[in-house]
């Protein structure tokens, strides 16, 4: 059993190359729950939460590069919250102040939960994930990284170094359904982002399929009906839009919700986000 504290990304590359069975510990909010309940066998652990490079973010040009150990707390307020408002909205719905002080964006991606609240936003924005190991760096789309319920395509010696998130000009929304306002895992969630310059709308859904997914049909349909100059949408298309959002979901029944309720609420979230961003044409 060994416990190691990585001090830089180079260190981390070496430590993983040396023994790739070592497990990474970031904020611990998923990791330690599994350890406490004996659902995770640990023989070697590398703490990555003191690696300065991973705790930084920077705004360059038309995107933000967010280190994997940036916490929700940092995302939910300050400059990041105005650069990527939907990501901040999502961060603010996660857990509690204690959880947001510790939990990281890299941990949320690596855990790859269907209910991971960062994921729909990153999908809708078309974020790219930078993955690193001693042998080099590669870049994946979010849906290439996340391969199923709590599974990802990282090789054993790789780690998530950072996430490249486009900064768009246009309103964004993240909405989530759950039994109370704090400390809830999403029953359903939806992210909607717009890019006024490219006349683009991105929509992604959480907790309604094995992994968060894009709602491509609904995106195509609605983008053809939006009046981008006036930021309006005709009332006649809302119902069809809501149906397309519902149809892109493939939910299951579980202890948190029935699939019928998930299907219903995801449509409601779609309409609500749309009408927060666009006015109804009259």
């Amino acid at each position: 059993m060994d416990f190691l504290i990585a001090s830089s990304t180079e260190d981390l590359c070496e430590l993983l190359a040396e023994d790739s069975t070592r497990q990474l510990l970031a904020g611990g909010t998923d990791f330690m729950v599994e350890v406490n309940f004996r659902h995770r066998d640990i023989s070697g652990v590398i703490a990555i939460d003191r690696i300065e490079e991973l705790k930084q973010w920077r705004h360059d040009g038309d995107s933000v590069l967010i280190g994997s150990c940036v916490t929700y707390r940092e995302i939910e307020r300050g400059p990041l919250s105005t650069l990527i408002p939907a990501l901040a909205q999502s961060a603010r719905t996660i857990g509690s102040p204690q959880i947001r002080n510790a939990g990281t964006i890299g941990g949320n991606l690596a855990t790859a939960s269907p209910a991971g609240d960062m994921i729909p936003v990153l999908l809708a924005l078309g974020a790219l994930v930078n993955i690193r190991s001693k042998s080099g760096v590669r870049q994946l789309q979010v849906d290439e990284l996340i391969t199923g319920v709590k599974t990802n395509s990282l090789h054993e010696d790789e780690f998530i170094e950072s996430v490249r998130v486009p900064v768009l000009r246009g309103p964004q929304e993240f909405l989530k359904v759950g039994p109370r306002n704090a400390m809830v895992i999403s029953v359903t969630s939806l992210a909607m982002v717009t890019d006024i310059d490219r006349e683009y709308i991105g929509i992604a859904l959480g907790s309604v399929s094995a992994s968060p997914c894009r709602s491509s049909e609904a995106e195509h349909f609605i983008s053809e009906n939006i009046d981008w100059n006036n930021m309006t949408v005709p009332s006649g298309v809302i119902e069809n839009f809501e149906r397309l959002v519902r149809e892109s979901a493939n939910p299951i029944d579980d202890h948190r919700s029935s699939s019928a309720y998930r299907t219903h609420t995801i449509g409601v979230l779609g309409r609500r986000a749309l009408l927060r961003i666009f006015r109804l044409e009259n």
Partner: protein
Amino acid sequence: MDIAQEFNQYELTVNDSRYVISGSWLGESLLYVLRERLGLYGSKNACEQGECGSCSVMMDDVLVCSCLVLAANAEGREIKTIESVADGNELSDVQEAFIDTGAIQCGFCTPGLLVTIHDFLDSNPEPEESEIKEAISGNLCRCTGYGRIVEAVQLVSIRRSRRDT
């Protein structure tokens, strides 16, 4: 920081005292070590999954659930627990306010709430009620219904602003 640290012995700094922890299991949480190895029973254990906040401590001035901190990874960090909130027999103003408003029933949630509220009021001395509710949303109380806890926070805020003027 030296990367290769001997796991089975490490040092913790808790409430300004240093402790050497040896012969422990790698997976022990900070909460477990505080309670079972250091005899600091103020931090409570109710869920071990970050849901209840009764184990809240400050780690390098950041409020965290100690059940979600790997104890060995707290080495080199300043841990402050509920045991450091009162100054000897002198209660802190938040503790006084809890007594004055009757914000304690069984008391199980109280240590975690006190740590949380001290942290919150340090960064937000004159909070709105909605901000108070958000700040304590990670601390479950099964007895009080929270009304008096919110009142206690408001009372501290008022008392501090009077004291400062």
